């Protein structure tokens, strides 16, 4: 039985209302772009250059977010089936298929209006091979102009000067000229600095929010709740006043929760007593997002840190901030440092740090069928974390937006046995201590 409040009692906090309005406004602009005389660029969440696009007044459309929206609204299954009929293999990433299926159906936004075909595909090739093919596929279908920003992988666990110089050079010689041409606006580096200043201000509060999960009880869920908190900073709002305001509000709300000794807010209201603290690796499932989350909060399980909330930029672990004094270099560093652009040893170190700093009871991998970038190597990461922390790790398999790969009974069984295992381990620990 859920110990949380019924949905009717759940009060939407100001930050939630603010984010909702921001998203609605962005979709409104995107769907009225022609009428408003605005240009639209599509790009990815990792390596998203929102501050730069803002310099040219170009709207930022993120196809992963559209796929998530369609997943949460239970529309993606049909879109994926359509894309498979168009020749996409059942084996490949379902974001790509949901997006291609969506485009083929007229790309209807959540506001019910069609999205425009983008004026530019800004192929920020950061941390995922599929990105390259995804925009090649869109280009093949819609003939969109495409500009590639190749961000080298941190294969040796660091960003080298050569990598940074290469990214900056591409920004200067490839990306900025394309944006100028499309928008008809001359690049103004001071405008970029201003945007970056606002990014850094928002990032400061964002990191505070993530780190609030070190409290006991944690006032936030850093995975299921975290996907909402990353919304503005990972998408079309980084660098805006609205994002600064959003994170200010969010921080205030969380400060109050900490002061009141409260746990996270869930779709069913306040979570009951915190029993388990986890670190989670991998993206969530979107088609059954609420059911998935419920399996946690009904058991008093809270996620105190997650790697998915680092996919569009890592701000907490090594303190990166966008820097107005080094505008293009810091955009390059941002792209280079996104979570899946870091090699596996770095990912393991990061998770180990979260396990320790957030006093987690265990490590859970949500392995996503679609995503080799995340998933290849996760079994080894699990073993490595178990070895280093002595905490039990567990593994579940789902998919992002393909409803065929979310089996509620299996996932629930797995989680229940895992919770039991942690209980046993605790009892064992208590016996030993006694």
């Amino acid at each position, binding site marked *: 039985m859920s110990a949380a409040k019924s949905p009717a009692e759940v009060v939407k906090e100001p930050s939630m209302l603010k984010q909702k309005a921001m998203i609605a406004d962005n979709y409104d602009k995107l769907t009225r772009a022609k009428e408003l005389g605005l240009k639209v660029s599509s790009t990815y969440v990792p390596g998203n250059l929102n501050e730069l696009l803002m310099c040219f007044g170009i709207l930022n459309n993120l196809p992963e977010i559209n796929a998530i929206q369609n997943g949460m609204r239970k529309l993606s299954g049909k879109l994926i089936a359509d894309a498979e009929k*168009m*020749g*996409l*293999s059942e*084996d*490949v*990433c379902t974001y*790509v298929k949901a997006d291609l299926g969506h485009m083929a159906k007229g790309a209807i936004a959540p506001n019910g209006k069609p999205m425009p075909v983008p004026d530019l595909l800004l*192929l920020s*090739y950061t941390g*995922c*091979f*599929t990105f*390259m*093919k*995804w925009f*090649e*596929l869109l*280009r*093949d279908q819609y*003939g969109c102009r*495409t500009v*590639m920003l*190749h961000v*080298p*992988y941190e*294969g*040796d666990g660091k960003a*080298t000067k*050569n*990598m940074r*110089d*290469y990214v900056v*050079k*591409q920004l200067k*010689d*490839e990306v900025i000229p394309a944006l100028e041409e499309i928008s008809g606006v001359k690049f103004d580096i001071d405008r970029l600095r201003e945007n970056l200043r606002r990014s850094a201000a928002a990032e400061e509060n964002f990191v505070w929010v993530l780190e609030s999960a070190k409290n006991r009880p944690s006032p936030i869920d850093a995975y299921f709740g975290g996907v909402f908190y990353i919304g503005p900073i990972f998408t079309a709002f980084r660098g805006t006043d609205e994002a600064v305001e959003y994170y200010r509000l969010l921080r205030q709300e969380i400060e109050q929760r900490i002061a009141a000794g409260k746990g996270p807010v869930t779709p069913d209201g306040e979570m009951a007593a915190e029993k388990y603290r986890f670190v989670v690796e991998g993206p969530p499932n979107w088609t059954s997002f609420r059911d998935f989350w419920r399996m946690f909060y009904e058991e008093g399980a809270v996620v105190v840190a997650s790697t998915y909330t680092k996919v569009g930029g890592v701000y907490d672990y090594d303190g990166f901030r966008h820097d107005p004094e080094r505008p293009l270099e810091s955009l390059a560093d941002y792209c280079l440092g996104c979570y*899946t652009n870091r*090699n*596996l*040893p*770095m*990912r*393991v170190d990061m998770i180990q740090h979260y396990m320790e700093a957030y006093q987690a009871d265990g490590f859970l991998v949500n*392995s996503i*069928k679609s995503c*080799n*970038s995340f*998933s*290849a*190597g*996760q*079994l*080894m990461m699990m073993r*490595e974390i178990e070895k280093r922390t002595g905490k039990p790790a567990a593994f579940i*398999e789902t998919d992002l937006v393909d409803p065929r790969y979310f089996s509620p009974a299996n996932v629930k069984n797995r989680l229940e046995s895992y919770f039991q295992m942690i209980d046993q381990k605790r009892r064992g620990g208590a016996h030993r201590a006694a």
Partner: protein
Amino acid sequence: MQQVSEIIDYCQTLYEDLSFAAAREWKAAEQGRKVVGYMPVYVPRELIHAGGMLPLGILGGGEDLEVIHGDAYYQSYICRIPRSTVELAVSKRLDFVDGMLFPSICDVIRNLSGMWKLMYPELYVRYFDVPQNYKDEIGGNYYVHELQELRQGLEGICGRTISDDDIRRSIAVYNENRRLVNAVYDFRAREPWKAPSWHVYLLMRAGMILPVEAHSQLLQDYLAAAAADDQPMRDNCRVILQGMFCEQPPLNLIKSIEFAGCYIVDDDCMLVGRWLLRAVPAAGDPIANLARAFLKYSTETAAKYEPDGSRKGRYLIEAVRQRGAEGVIFAAPSFCDPALLDRPMLANALTRENIPHISFKYAENSGQMQPIREQAGTFADSIKLWSEA
């Protein structure tokens, strides 16, 4: 003169030997010799060779390797090559390898580089990135630096400086090898009845393990022997096989396609040997020359970005024309993102040119060939029907 069968038997022995005895023997023959492993799709083997080391192509465990440990490292929805490669490593079949290079081909191989670092912290392990920007002053500069870093890393293995002259000499040696590899491919396209594809495949596989000089000699011997070999010409249709650039097909798959009535006149297996499309200048700055060759005349494949949308798939159409192929068979490893994501675009390009194509998936250990034989047979029949109509 050696017989074709002798040469191919020798290649088959090398192919079947999962202990890499030939490379072990090479290493043991002289004190201080080193071996550097690499995975698909491309590394500049010239640099390894220039350090006096043996580049060893590691293409998974093939059809006969029993994967016992490897499955514990990978979920079921990831292709087979990384798990069989891990199997080779944990079963100590690669314990003589002194360094490993993981090229930029996909996220699986990319992440495997990190796994290797975790498993073998003492070993030189490098994720070898290549530019996706092909302008000299952008991607070119970046790549020159990456090559220099690789050179330094390799110097750490061989324990000596790799000089420009060393690299120039190696470039010349590999130019000769590329010339011969291309000659074999050209010969097969001209007279496919004399050069069955499984022969050509085994010959190219031998190039993954033998020293380049020995491989070049083998290719030369084969060309002479095959030209003299009198084989009947069959009424087969001519096809290109596409999508096999990483996880390798079982040998039976290649044989099955031929038995089904198709002459394979081109393929994209083991692209490393044909990656650079022209001879690299052996004079001048060797690193700059290798970089320039990569940027300006390297092969097209799914792991590379095509900046010009109108050219997507063009190379395949050109290959069809040049090789006189009548159709394309897309054969991709299951769960292979690069091959499977590229396929619809290539297929569209072929359709626009009225070039017939079919597709199927395989794994390196696929055992059931009947469906593939039937599909290829039907494809061959339909091509013949169209051409007669």
